[in-house]
Structures are given as C-alpha cells and as structure tokens.
C-alpha cells in the first residue's frame, strides 16, 4: 500500500481517506516530548480527528490541540464545507481534543455537539462558555447522517470521567478516543505502515489506562460485541485498520491481573514493606510477618525496600489485598524510600485495599501517622491503628507487633469483630 499523502503538490495539507466516506483530518505533533507531565514520547504524537460524510450531512469526531487548529481546519476544508457540518462529537474533552472546538463551532454554528453525560460539567469548566449548546448521550443513543449512523458507547474513566467511544455502524468503524491510542508520530499513519509502535501502545496503556482496569473491562464488554471491526480509529497514534481486534484482545490481556492464576480465590495476599536503619523497624516487620503467617488463607510476603526497585513493587501492590509499610522516623518524617514508593502508585487502583503502618523512632515518631494519612489519601482503609516503638523493641512490644500482624491478617479475611464505641470515650 502506498504511503498516505498528507499534502498536495502546492504544499497545502490534505485530508487522508480511510474509506469513501471517512477521512482523517488530524494533525502531527512530532516535537512533543512530554505529555500531561507524566508521559514521555520519543517521536511526538498525533491528534487524530475524523470526518464522516453521510447523505444528510457531515460529522466531525474530535478536534485537536488549540495550537494545531490551523492545520486541522486546512485538512477539514480539503474535504468539506463548514455549512455541511451537522454533527460534532467529542469522545473526550481533554484540551488536546477539545482545543479547536470553540473555533469549529464558530465556523459551523448550525452543528450540534454530542458529548457524554458525564462531560457536561467539564465542558463548561474547560471552555468557559455558558452559551454552548450540546446534547448529552449514553450507550445506545444514535445520531443519523442519512445513510450513515453514529452510535455512542458510554465508556467512562478511560481515562477521564467523560470518555466515550463512537461507532459508525454501517462501516464497522470505532472512533475510540484515547482507548487503543498511543503517543507515536509517524507520517505513514496506519498500523500496517508505521514503524514498530508496540512499546508506545503498551506504555500508553500502563500509564493512562492501567489505573482504570475495571472500567477497561466494562468498556471491552461493550466493544467486543462489535467485532469484527473494519477499523479502530483512536485519538492518538497509528490508526488500526490491520487486524484491529488484536488491540482489543491485548487490552483484555493487560486488564487481567497476572497473579490471578497463582493465588486461590479464597486466599488473600498481604505485603509487608519496610526499611530500617539500625534493625529496629526490621525486627518489628519480622514480628508482624510471623503474626500474619499464623493465619491460614493469607499469603504474607516481607520485603526490604533497600533490596528492590520500585516498579516491580508497584506491580505486586496492584495485585495485593493488604499493604503494610514500616518506616523509621528520621528528623520528623518517614524516610524517602517509603515516600518514593508511595508516590509511585498513581498508576494502580488501590481503593479499599487494607493498609497498616509501623515503625521505630528515636524521639518523636511522626512518620507512622504521616504514612497512615497518605494511605487514607490513596483510598486505602486503615482500620487498625499503627504501631510506633521507641528505639529497640522490648519482648512485650515484639508481642504487640505479632498481634498487629495477626489482626491485619484476620481483617483481610473478615474475621475481626466489629467495634462499637462511644464518641465520649475517644477523648
């Protein structure tokens, strides 16, 4: 297949035909190196926008980052007039897709904007325009372009609350928004022509979609019945026209937990991470480990942060049911390796996991409370107050640590009895 022609002989940018009625009118941003603070890209990205022509009007699916609006409008003008545009769909409102929307609506005032139900409040906050008219849509809602029909799939949290996909029914094309996308810029545009972009696809999933695995699985339940699709057209990176179902399958694989096959369904996992300067926090960790090990059906693991890298620990944490962190307090704070780990967890879902904290200290011991607050901030539940021990633990204190471990393991299995207290007794 020949390379797509992005501009004509006079150098004017052109739309690229994806079928007789569908065109790519996106833009290339080869100079981008950092996206959204958290993502790197070695060759830039694309902001993909699409145009669908029906017998009764034209639809635009997504726009581009504002700074690239001129290229987008030039490509649009190569295949349609503004007065033909009947429908504008935003699958996702992030500024790299909504940036050219205000100007597009100014040029095509007759067009109706379709966004997801959850996008409504975001639209106002992003565009700062009260007067913008729109229609909120949910799964199953459709809009007709005559002989072409767009149908919407409500796929929230991939990776914002507002995200949705749009299905062009007659052509079996899915406009997937950020789902199945990646930051990869290649003028050959199509997955069967660009350079090897698998690493970008996986990297994008790992940083953007991974925290929302449960939502990915729910979305795939809506998308898989549409297979076989002719094309999947994401909002970034290569357009997937060659075996698009492979990318759907890969999302399904990535959204499964790798540990599922090893740990029984009736078992729980508890990870104890610690770091210790003089061995006191380590002795506490070992006692907690012993205590937790005395309960069956809980698989307990003990890890010294000094001996590991963060990335594999993040993978372990994602699959675990309970997490315990041991830190000494040094100069009024928990120590850096603990904070480094706790600031690396935005890519995984921690909600409702069990948390616990312990540590030895010299004279103040704030570290334990600080880490407990951090765990609550990360949406873990912290039902058992942490243990702080001044310098070297006594035998009695080691016993308390064993009890702490035992209680954490019992809590994981739902074996702890409910506590009833009076507010007045809490002081």
């Amino acid at each position: 297949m020949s390379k797509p022609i992005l501009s004509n002989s006079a150098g004017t940018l052109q739309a690229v035909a994806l079928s007789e009625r569908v065109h790519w009118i996106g833009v290339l941003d080869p100079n981008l190196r950092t996206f959204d603070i958290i993502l790197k890209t070695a060759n830039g990205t694309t902001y993909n926008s699409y145009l669908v022509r029906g017998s009764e009007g034209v639809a635009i699916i997504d726009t581009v980052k504002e700074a690239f609006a001129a290229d987008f409008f030039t490509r649009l003008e190569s295949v349609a007039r503004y007065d033909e545009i009947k429908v504008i769909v935003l699958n996702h409102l992030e500024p790299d897709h909504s940036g050219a929307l205000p100007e597009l609506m100014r040029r095509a005032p007759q067009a109706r904007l379709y966004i997801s139900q959850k996008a409504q409040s975001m639209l106002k906050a992003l565009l700062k325009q009260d007067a913008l008219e729109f229609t909120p849509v949910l799964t199953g809602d459709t809009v007709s372009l005559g002989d072409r029909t767009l149908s919407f799939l409500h796929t929230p949290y991939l990776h914002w609350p507002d995200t949705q996909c749009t299905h062009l029914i007659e052509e079996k094309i899915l406009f997937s928004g950020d789902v199945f996308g990646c930051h990869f810029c290649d003028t050959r545009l199509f997955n069967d022509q660009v350079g090897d972009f698998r690493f970008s696809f996986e990297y994008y999933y790992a940083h953007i979609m991974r925290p929302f695995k449960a939502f990915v699985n729910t979305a795939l339940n809506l998308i898989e019945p549409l297979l076989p699709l002719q094309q999947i057209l994401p909002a970034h990176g290569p357009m997937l026209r060659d075996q698009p179902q492979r990318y759907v399958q890969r999302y399904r694989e990535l959204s499964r937990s790798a540990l599922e096959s090893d740990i029984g369904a009736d078992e729980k996992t508890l990870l104890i991470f610690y770091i210790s300067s003089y061995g006191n926090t380590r002795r506490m960790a070992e006692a907690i480990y012993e205590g937790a090990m005395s309960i069956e059906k809980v698989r307990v693991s003990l890890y010294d942060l000094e001996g590991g890298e963060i990335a594999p620990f993040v993978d372990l944490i994602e699959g675990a049911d309970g997490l315990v962190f041991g830190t000494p307090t040094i100069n009024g704070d928990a120590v850096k390796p603990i904070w480094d780990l706790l600031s690396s967890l935005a890519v995984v879902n921690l909600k409702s996991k069990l948390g616990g904290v312990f540590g030895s200290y010299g004279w103040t011991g704030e570290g334990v409370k600080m880490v407990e607050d951090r765990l609550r901030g990360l949406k873990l539940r912290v039902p058992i107050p942490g243990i702080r021990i001044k310098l070297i633990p006594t035998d009695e204190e080691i016993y308390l640590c064993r009890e702490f471990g035992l209680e954490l393991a019992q809590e994981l299995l739902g074996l702890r009895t409910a506590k009833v207290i009076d507010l007045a007794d809490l002081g």
Partner: protein
Amino acid sequence: MAKASITFEDINVTVSAPAGTRIIEISEKVGSAITYGCREGDCGTCIMKVSEGWNNLSEPSVLEDKILRENMAGKHNRLACQAQVLGGKISVKPV
C-alpha cells in the same frame, strides 16, 4: 441527649455520638479513610457514600448540593464535613 449510631464500613467501627455531631468530628477520631480538604464544604474532597440512614442525617444545604453536583457525586453521596448525625442508625464509607 439524643444519640445516633454511625458505622464506618471501611474500618468496621460503630460509634455512638450525640445528635448534631458532624461526621468529620467522628471519622477523624476513629481513623476512617474518608479524607478531608478544606473542611468547610467547599472542595468536595470528603464526599462519602451513605449506605444506610440517609434520613438520619441533616438535610444538605444549597451550597452542599452545589458542591456535590460540581463533583459529579452520586445519588447517595454527602459531604462528611457538612452532614450532621441526627439519630437512629447510619452507615457510611469513603467513595
């Protein structure tokens, strides 16, 4: 004094507290994972789910309703820094 019984489901603790107590005052003492930002009903950080006893809480103010809406809160959500326990049984958890 009339008392209410409020359960924090995430830590499985039930507290008996005088009517009129704001949930923030109880949850912070027992260590529930409901987290707080501004603590005055403006930021939406402390949105919680009320799973039982909705009517045993004070009515949301116009301002609280506005913050809940802006934060896309669900039907059974309240701000823990604003809701006061009135009596009976209540059950809440972090969202």
